[in-house]
């Protein structure tokens, strides 16, 4: 290993050249500590202000889950086949407020003669892609990683998705209004956990 040459100009090596240099070296040490402290202190405000602002998104919460009118019962044929409906809601994106905008989609289906409606979120529980419904083979398929689901959202093995499609709470009003509780769930985990 090549050795660094002793440099008499360097305070680091001063002691080597001149053993009586100890007090100067102590002064040098104090100066170094002070220099680092002052420099660090001076740089702190921009870093702190930057990180403070950067972490702001962590204290923001999504809008609370509410029941939204999605369709009328008459629009969902009672043949057990899912139909896709947009979810319309007011949305706030940072500073912008959008009134009555499509914010996502749900699949609604009902069995023959039933008034009960099943609502499935179109968001894939695996990685969050938009699940498509393939009428030809009567099953849901996610275009990203080929997770497949049965008509009622059940998992078709083998599947990359850790859980069945997410069902959403759904109620049918007396006048046939179908309302869905619009929620998002964490992707990639086996349990269905509400996000946000």
């Amino acid at each position: 290993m090549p050795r660094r040459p002793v440099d008499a100009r360097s305070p680091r090596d001063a002691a080597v050249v001149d053993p009586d240099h100890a007090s100067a070296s102590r002064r040098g040490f104090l100066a170094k500590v002070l220099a680092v402290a002052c420099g660090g202190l001076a740089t702190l405000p921009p870093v702190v202000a930057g990180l403070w602002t950067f972490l702001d998104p962590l204290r923001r919460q999504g809008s609370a889950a509410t029941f939204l009118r999605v369709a009328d019962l008459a629009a969902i044929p009672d043949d057990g086949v899912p139909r896709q409906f947009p979810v319309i809601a007011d949305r706030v994106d940072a500073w912008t407020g959008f009134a009555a905008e499509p914010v996502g989609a749900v699949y609604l289906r009902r069995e023959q003669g039933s008034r009960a409606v099943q609502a499935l979120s179109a968001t894939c529980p695996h990685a969050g892609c938009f699940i498509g419904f393939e009428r030809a083979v009567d099953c849901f398929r996610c275009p990203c990683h080929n997770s497949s689901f049965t008509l009622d959202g059940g998992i078709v093995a083998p599947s990359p998705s850790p859980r069945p499609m997410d069902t959403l709470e759904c109620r049918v009003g007396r006048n046939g209004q179908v309302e869905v509780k619009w929620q998002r769930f964490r992707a990639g985990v086996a349990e269905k956990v509400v996000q946000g």
Partner: protein
Amino acid sequence: MTPPRRGPLGRVADFLDDRTGYRALLHEALYERVPGGARWRYVWGSTLVFAFLTQVITGLFLWANYAPSAQTAWESVFFIQHEMAGGWLLRGIHHVMAQAMVVLLALHLLQVVIDGAYKAPREVNFWLGLVLMMLVLGMALTGYLLPWDQKGYWATIVATNLAGIVPVVGPSLQQLVIGGPEYGHHTLTRFFALHAGFLPATLVLFLVVHLAVFRRHGLHAKQPLTKPDGMFWPDQLLKDAVAMLAVMAVVLGVILVPAARAMLAGEAVHPGHLGAELGAPADPSQPYAAARPEWYFLFLFQFLKVFEGWGATGEFVGAILVPGLIMAAMALMPIVGGWRLGHRFNVAFTLAILAGVGLLTGLALREDYYALWVDRAALAEAETLHDQTGGDRVKLAAALGGDRAKATAIERQWKTLEKVRRSQAFLDAVKLAKADAARAVELAGRPERIPPAGMLAVVRGDPLMQGPRLFAQHCAGCHAHVDPLAADAEAVIAASSAANLFAFGSADWIRGLLDPEQVAGPAYFGNTAHKDGEMVSFVRDDLTDEATWPRADIDAVVAALAAEAGRPVPPEIAGLVERGRELVAADDRCGGCHRFRDNGAELSGEPDLTGWGGREWLVGIIADPAHERFYGHANDRMPRFGVAAEGELPQLTREQIEILADWLRGAWYRPSQR
């Protein structure tokens, strides 16, 4: 030779040093000889590097939240400043440090010139420094636009138009910089790319070379050397670090002192109001008389005024030729410095330039703030004479009865008066700009947030902001709009030729109308054709007859009409609304002349009181006062603002009339409604 035993950290360091040679690099960077020891006068370069580092750090974090487009730039900056935690501090540091950087640049340049550090062999480094200076000023200029507020917008219009007068390439250059023939999205994206990309990247490049060349020649020590040589680390760096800390302390002080002052005064401190200002959103259709460049460019602004009356040539000379020549002279300093007395000339030249800049800045500030320290009372006589004579010298001489000395004195005062008026106009514009900015921020905080079309759409439709402007432009020629209790109310009302519309439709306003003392006064019908009309005689003769119009009945009419206007009915008469409506409709009371709902009264020049003073009614009367529903044939002089002959445009659009109506009714967003 075996190295001494070392801990795990030391071994990692050895490992890294073997592979990278970082110790030698660090050694090279830190152990630089400082001839004559460390000195405070050498700190300016380091403080500039520190300031730039601060700008990079804060700039990157701002970048993470900024959206450059005409519909989102102001909005995202608003969000950073007023809604994001710590955003005010982040933006404040970036904003104030930018200004500190300009000051530090001047100090660094001054130190280099006075010390003669630009002379051989350091000429190239001096030129590199000048390039760095231009880059920093370029970043200041481009950064000013990014919030897309009135201030930045209008300053940029001026700056880019000046660029447009550069011979030959000017127009193309201007169009390239603003990203097309009009200011908009691409002006912002391009300025942003310049501000955060091209310019800082170029600056880093030049800075690296600047520092490398600096190291090659070593520090230029100021003679005579009084102390033994020192080391850059830690001797000089300690001084540098203390200076950096001082710079940061000043920057934080500028941001936080207003907060401390407010706290001491016992006022609430809104973090959003600290640090950098955010004006109202940029609006090409709204005049902005408070337009000024940032203070460090004020000298250029003032310098241009020297060439007033020169036309386009003046702009070219003032904005391009002279500054260009000064830059060229500075670039020549290293060569001039080699001549006999050259250095002295350079120092004198630099000091003269700085003094000139200081003088011009002072003059600009003096012109703008002149009215603040001039005693207007001392000018009162001159002001009166000016009003009487219309500023005419011959008339003045006549008015003073040939008193020559006095005429000269008055004429001198007229000049002062003119300056005061100009300054007052600027100060008023600044006040209005501040009010607009505060209102825009208030509106941006509405629960429904900002529409996708952006804040400008909200601002343009806000009755509180636009109402007074529309009123001043279209209504104030006749109508007053002044609180009767205000200090100058009487004079304003006396000078008007139609009703005072302050709080029109409120219980107080109606009471005034039904007051025999006031109805024919200037605040109501006094200065109109209705002065001797039936309403005035009704109020004076009939309403004063307590037998037919007991006090409670008048109260009831007041209550009913205030309710009709949608104004709050005072609680003590709130129970009388129904009774009032009966009176208003009754054909032996108001209904004898006025139509009210289905009372069947004929419309013949007396306004329909159905919905009187409400939004729809106000919109209707502003649009067409001569409509039979309002004054019909009896309309005095009021223009039909919303009606035009075929093929012509009405004076006011439907939206403008609605804004006026809402403003008169006091119907605008108030944050307490949240």
